[in-house]
């Protein structure tokens, strides 16, 4: 009898990895909380969609990724960018529309990208990312790198044809693709319980012949483990997985949203479910990390975000020259 080999244990997070994960989550939180404040001053142009509350998802998934791997993101993309290693100062400068930004001030919050890091961009089109990830996964498969593609998308995008087509194609082509449905409960102001006709986004996986699982999005370790399994499976040729991550976003759809459609779930989540709070409690209770180390990270992150904002505000804005450059490689 040849026993089925279990996937290797994925919770082998050492101290360094735990601290890194915490740093990433804290950086995202600090980045977003600061933007929340700065946006209110009117200095930040355009739309800003904050990821606060959802940090565990991007962090835990991206903790398994390396330079072979690529991700596609959403309009709520700051967290994915930070977790995939995009430079935080350049991100902040981009959001301020500065020439020192990740996209030289031409993209803004919704289009931060760093292709050199496999970050295919936040995406202003709901459902824009999943087809792209079929492509990056196809490239990895074709090139034999063992790389995977991860599409982050929301409950809203789970209703887009592009997403459903991509799920089907990924399964038909048996691609190393992971579809992470970040269900934060609302597509803009419309509840997922209303707009998603089935009960769970993960249920849709059955229709595409792939595993669909649900994980608690506030629990870093839960997401980490599920993503680890899915990614390892994909790397080994096992095909795509749909992971539904359930949680709540802490702020509105965009900054300025009065959120009159919501009840008190944010206060409850912040108080009892918050991913950073949970993470701190658990790693300190078990003695894996001490409070001082975590506080040290908090301090460093605060300093980084402070510097990022200060530098962004000082940075030059693009000029007329920048208007017509970067449209084509050659034309």
């Amino acid at each position, binding site marked *: 009898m040849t026993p089925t080999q279990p996937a290797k244990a994925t919770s082998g997070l050492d101290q360094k990895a735990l601290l890194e994960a915490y740093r990433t989550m804290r950086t995202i939180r600090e980045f977003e909380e600061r933007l929340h404040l700065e946006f209110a001053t009117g200095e930040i142009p355009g739309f800003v969609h904050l990821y606060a509350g959802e940090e565990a998802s991007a962090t835990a998934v991206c903790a398994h990724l390396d330079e072979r791997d690529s991700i596609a993101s959403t309009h709520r993309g700051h967290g994915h960018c930070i977790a995939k290693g995009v430079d935080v100062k350049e991100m902040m400068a981009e959001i301020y529309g500065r020439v020192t930004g990740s996209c030289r001030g031409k993209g803004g919050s919704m289009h931060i990208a760093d292709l050199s890091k496999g970050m295919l961009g936040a995406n202003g089109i709901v459902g824009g990312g999943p087809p792209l990830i079929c492509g990056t996964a196809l490239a990895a498969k074709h090139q034999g790198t063992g790389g995977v593609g991860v599409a982050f998308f929301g409950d809203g995008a789970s209703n887009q044809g592009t997403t459903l087509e991509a799920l089907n194609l990924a399964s038909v082509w048996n691609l190393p693709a992971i579809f992470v449905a970040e269900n934060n409960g609302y597509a803009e102001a419309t509840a997922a319980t209303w707009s998603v006709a089935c009960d769970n986004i993960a249920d849709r996986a059955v229709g595409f012949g792939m595993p669909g699982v649900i994980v608690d999005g506030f629990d870093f370790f839960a997401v980490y483990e599920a993503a680890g399994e899915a990614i390892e499976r994909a790397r080994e040729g096992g095909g795509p997985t749909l992971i539904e991550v359930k949680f709540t976003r802490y702020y509105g759809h965009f900054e300025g949203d009065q959120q009159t459609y919501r009840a008190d779930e944010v206060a409850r989540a912040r108080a009892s479910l918050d991913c950073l709070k949970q993470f701190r409690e658990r790693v300190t209770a078990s003695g894996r990390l001490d409070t001082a180390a975590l506080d040290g990270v908090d301090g460093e992150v605060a300093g980084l975000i402070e510097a990022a904002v200060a530098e962004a505000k000082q940075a030059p804005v693009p000029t007329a020259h920048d208007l017509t450059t*970067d449209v084509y490689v050659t034309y």
Partner: protein
Amino acid sequence: MARTISYREAVNEALRQEMERDGSVIIMGEDNAGGAGSPGEDDAWGGVLGVTKGLQQRFPGRVLDTPISESAFVGAAVGAATRGLRPVAELMFIDFMGVCFDQIFNQAAKFRYMFGGKAVTPVVVRTMYGAGLNAAAQHSQCLYPLFTHIPGLKVVLPSSPYEAKGLLIQAIRDNDPVIFCEHKALYDMTGEVPEDSYTIPFGEADVVRDGDDVTIVALGRMVSVAEEAAAELARQDVQAEIIDPRTTSPLDRDTILESVENTGRLVVVDEATPRCGMAADISALVAQEAFGALRAPIEMVTAPHTPVPFAQPLEQLYIPDTQKVANAVKKTLDWKK
């Protein structure tokens, strides 16, 4: 050396030679191999009109059949292009752009600019366009103006087998997203095509015929219609210069303007509908940049502002023909203030 092959063979040969030259070139589309998962041959079709026939056997694993999911596979081609592949996706009919346009114009076309010049997306979307096969309103359109409108895309309209091969190889090697539009009525057109690989640069119009009396700018399949008209006009001692822009984006403005500077008359022939199309665009260009040289109002010969009809007599009326082109030329010649 050059030998005579069809437009279809020229496209196939370009794909084959580029796939041989560069392992990162892959092609995908509905039935591009044809027959995936079916009980018969895996490469039963080689594309709905046989354009990709034979590539599957030669390049196993690099010719991908797709589900009928244009958004997914066109998007996949775009995504793969950002990660080192040079995919050629076949959007079977240009009319189907409606079910995948976002991946082309909001994703592929925008990456470079939106990401501050740091993205390279060498994807080619091959697509079939044009009337003439009684395929009616949803399989016959000339929608390249819609692509031309989008900054970040390059749009190619090969008018002959020679152009088809050289422009497709250029498209595959090009580092920007390219929409490569093949006229379905040209697939059986034959012409001399070198066996060796070659590239025709984008943004360089071909002066198909020299002439001093009138400039005819013709697009895609209309180039051969214009040539027939010019041959007819030559018997009446009217020498038309025919310009095939080859690419609508980039557009070779200089060649058009230089010609009009010389002839003083312009007729634009385009199978597309007239509003916001290439004919209007080229006319505006000449009106703006070469107004002083014009000796007569510009004439546009286009399809009417209607969907493409089905019935044969209607479709024949719909497509610009030699007579309409010749009439337009005469109108510019006869014009008196």
